[in-house]
């Protein structure tokens, strides 16, 4: 077991712990900070998986932009009153059952189907390490075969910007 594998297992354990803390804390701001820890650990796992660009995007977009947006909206809340309320609905055992059954289902799918795929690709999976120049490869793919989805993503973002402005705009005071 190399040092990198140990690092991966540390990142995995830390991200599970911070995700659990994020969904169970009473104070919304504490939840946000635990989600920040989760995002940074997931970025570390991306680095270990050879997805450097994805790690950078994770830190910039998730930790930098999305989480700050959430924190701004949390400022609308009355945090002391929010802490006094019950955290979970009365149906939380059902929710926990749904989460656990999803995990069990994913595990089952993995052990039943993935064994074959894993052995099938085992022959060429011998080359060690991440592919060289993966950022250049991603850039070429984004502007080559994936150019249309790339442009459509900008359309989705434009629609969401317009939608957010329309939804959050203060209505005119008349009528």
């Amino acid at each position, binding site marked *: 077991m190399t040092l*990198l594998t140990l690092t991966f297992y540390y990142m*995995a354990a830390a*991200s*599970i712990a911070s*995700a659990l803390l994020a*969904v169970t804390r009473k104070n*919304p701001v504490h939840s*946000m900070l635990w*989600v920040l820890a*989760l*995002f940074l650990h*997931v970025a570390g*796992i*991306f680095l270990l*998986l*050879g*997805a450097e*660009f994805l790690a950078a995007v994770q830190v910039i*977009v*998730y930790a930098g*932009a*999305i989480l700050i*947006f*959430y924190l701004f*909206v949390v400022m*609308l*809340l*009355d945090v002391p009153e929010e802490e006094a*309320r019950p955290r979970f*609905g009365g*149906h*939380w055992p*059902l*929710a*926990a059952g*749904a*989460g*656990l059954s*999803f995990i069990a289902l*994913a*595990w089952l799918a*993995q052990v039943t189907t*993935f064994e074959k795929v*894993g052995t099938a*690709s085992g022959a*060429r*999976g011998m080359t060690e390490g*991440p592919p060289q120049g993966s950022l250049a490869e*991603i850039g070429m*793919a*984004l502007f080559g075969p*994936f150019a249309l989805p790339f442009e459509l993503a900008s359309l*989705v*973002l434009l*629609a*969401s*910007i317009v939608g*957010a402005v329309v*939804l959050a705009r*203060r209505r005119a005071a008349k009528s």
Partner: protein
Amino acid sequence: MTAPLNAVLGLSAVLFGIGVFGFLARRNIILMLISVEVMLNAVNLSLAGFSQHFEESRGQILALFVIAVAAAEVGVGLGLVIALNRNKPGAAVADLTKLKW
């Protein structure tokens, strides 16, 4: 392989399960949206794992699109939260009974 694929997929499944639990159990709409973010991160993790295992960059490209859609979802979702907040302060889903007569 620094990270075995089975471990990555297991971690992804556990994170997704935590997100499902949080989405279904929390009563605060902002924390429900945060649970959705946890689920999307879990999916990205498994995509990156597959991308490494099969030495394919398509998994990472798909993860980039997932991140773009997550950003769009946050914009619209939090715009809805602000609009709801204007009518009734607070973010508890149990209070959102406007459609219930």
